[in-house]
């Protein structure tokens, strides 16, 4: 999937700066016997984007209680959004909404927050929304979006502007919470398969940009093999270098396999729209954060081995 190219002007950093869009932080709480109890959010280590929910009283859990979100919005100089240099016709009405998406929950939705009419008034809006008990799991992403609530009559100079009900005109901000979930577990398994080699890799993906790395890849270490003793961490024969070699070879194989899938490889390299935790996201991370050189097979082999020697 290529990056989305918009056919009409949408909100950009320059416009976003002009409208002086301000919000309070998200406030999370739950309701028990008609009473509100505040929950705290905390950044998950190594990710400024993703937050976990903490209940200091230790009562709340996603299985047993609802959870609610509340947030206040203030927008002042938004008139620049209207007219030929903006994103909507002068007499159109824009809407602000919160889009929540969760592939882990297999659900998504839209919560309207308020309207922006072309006037001089300051706009103050409040979002307050309840998610049912045991409705959601895993990661949930909240994106504040702006859209066409009501179409206008475009003047001659406004014909390039979006003017269809519901058209999305850009994102104002993003916030992600994690209700539960496995950390990033490296998918190494021990198997017991006589007459099979000491180790092998399985890559079973249809769409690597979407499917989870830990779900469709497995590196299998065979206990039934006579040389397993070199990989058994409880034995004195354990040889760390052999384990590193296996990991390196397995990762080279995985990267090479993805590289053979031209379209998916391009998307992976660009890092566009990759599902959190997916094969492509992991490989994007290897390349961009860990700086593995994937230009040629030799380069991959060398940079991965350097990495394991330094890190393990």
């Amino acid at each position, binding site marked *: 999937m290529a990056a*989305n190219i918009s*056919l009409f002007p949408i909100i950009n950093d320059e416009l976003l700066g002009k409208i002086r869009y301000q919000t309070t932080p998200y406030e999370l709480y739950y309701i028990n016997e008609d009473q509100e109890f505040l929950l705290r959010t905390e950044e998950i280590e190594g990710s400024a984007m993703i937050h976990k929910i903490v209940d200091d009283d230790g009562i709340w859990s*996603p*299985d047993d209680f609802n959870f609610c979100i509340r947030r206040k919005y203030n927008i002042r100089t938004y008139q620049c959004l209207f007219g030929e240099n903006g994103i909507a016709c002068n007499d159109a009405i824009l*809407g602000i*909404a919160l*889009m*929540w*998406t*969760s*592939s*882990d*929950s*297999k*659900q*998504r*939705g*839209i919560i*309207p927050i308020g309207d922006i009419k072309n006037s001089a008034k300051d706009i103050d809006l409040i979002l307050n929304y309840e998610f049912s*008990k*045991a*409705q*959601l*799991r*895993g990661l949930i*992403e909240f994106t504040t*979006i702006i*859209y066409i*609530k009501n179409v206008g009559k475009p003047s001659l100079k406004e014909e390039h502007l979006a003017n*269809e*009900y*519901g*058209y*999305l005109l850009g994102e104002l901000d993003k916030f992600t919470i994690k209700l539960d979930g*496995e950390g990033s577990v490296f*998918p190494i*398994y021990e*198997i*017991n398969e006589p007459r099979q080699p000491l180790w092998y890799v399985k890559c*079973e993906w*249809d769409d690597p940009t*979407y*499917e*989870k790395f*830990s*779900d*469709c890849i497995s590196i299998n270490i065979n206990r039934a093999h006579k040389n397993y003793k070199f990989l058994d961490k409880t034995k004195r024969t354990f040889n760390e270098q052999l384990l590193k070699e296996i990991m390196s070879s397995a990762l080279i194989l995985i990267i090479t396999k993805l590289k053979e899938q031209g379209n998916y490889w391009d998307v992976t390299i660009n890092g566009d729209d990759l*599902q959190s935790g997916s094969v492509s996201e992991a490989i994007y991370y290897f390349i961009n954060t860990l700086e593995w050189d994937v230009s040629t097979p030799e380069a991959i082999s060398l940079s991965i081995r350097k990495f394991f020697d330094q890190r393990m």
Partner: protein
Amino acid sequence: MIIKTLNREESQVAMKEWILNFPALPKIEEDYLKIREDLQEFYKNVKEECNTNNKRDYYIDSHFGILLYDYLWRQSGFSLRVAANDDFWRYLSIKVIPDIIAERWGKENESHYWSRSTRIWLRSIWWYVHLSWQGDMTSTTHLLESPCFSTDSILNLEERSGRKGTFINVYRYIMYYYSHIPKEIIEEFNKKINGREEDLFRIIMKLNTAKVMVVDPALYLGGEREYVRSLFTDAGVRV
């Protein structure tokens, strides 16, 4: 019911045990024994009722699916959050009714038991019913019995949902409108595009994937219902 789960590693082990001890069923606790018996009963009845050899698999998938769907909602502790948890489906598949999965897919078919999320059979038929739900059992069963649906529909609906979460209502309307198109119109449409590996259902799905990039269905004028109708209109079919 206390929700039980198997993660990938536990599934791998449990699957080996199941194959090794086949056809003995795994030992489980009392409340799950009851669930096992009930589901076995459903499966047996569905098989007996099925008097067609044509689309037999679809008959079983959809009818067993709807019974499973209704049954699980009636268990305390079951929720959407549970239904979205692959590890719950893994437990149900390998520990509770591995015999039924074996009958449908063979006893060693790992991907339909646990290894490929989108292929775990119980998960896939439960969500197929959820995404087709029309408010009650009778109308949903009626919809699923429409001749335009097949095991391909289950695959298409399940495998295309995802990425950033599923537009549940959109799928329910797609199923509704699609099932109401006369057979001749679908056939005529599919004949027109003959040669390409496509049919109307898949084209609607693809149009949806493209359209949600620019407009959120819930914000469309007239909401999700009108949004879905517009997909059919875009494909050149009136609904």
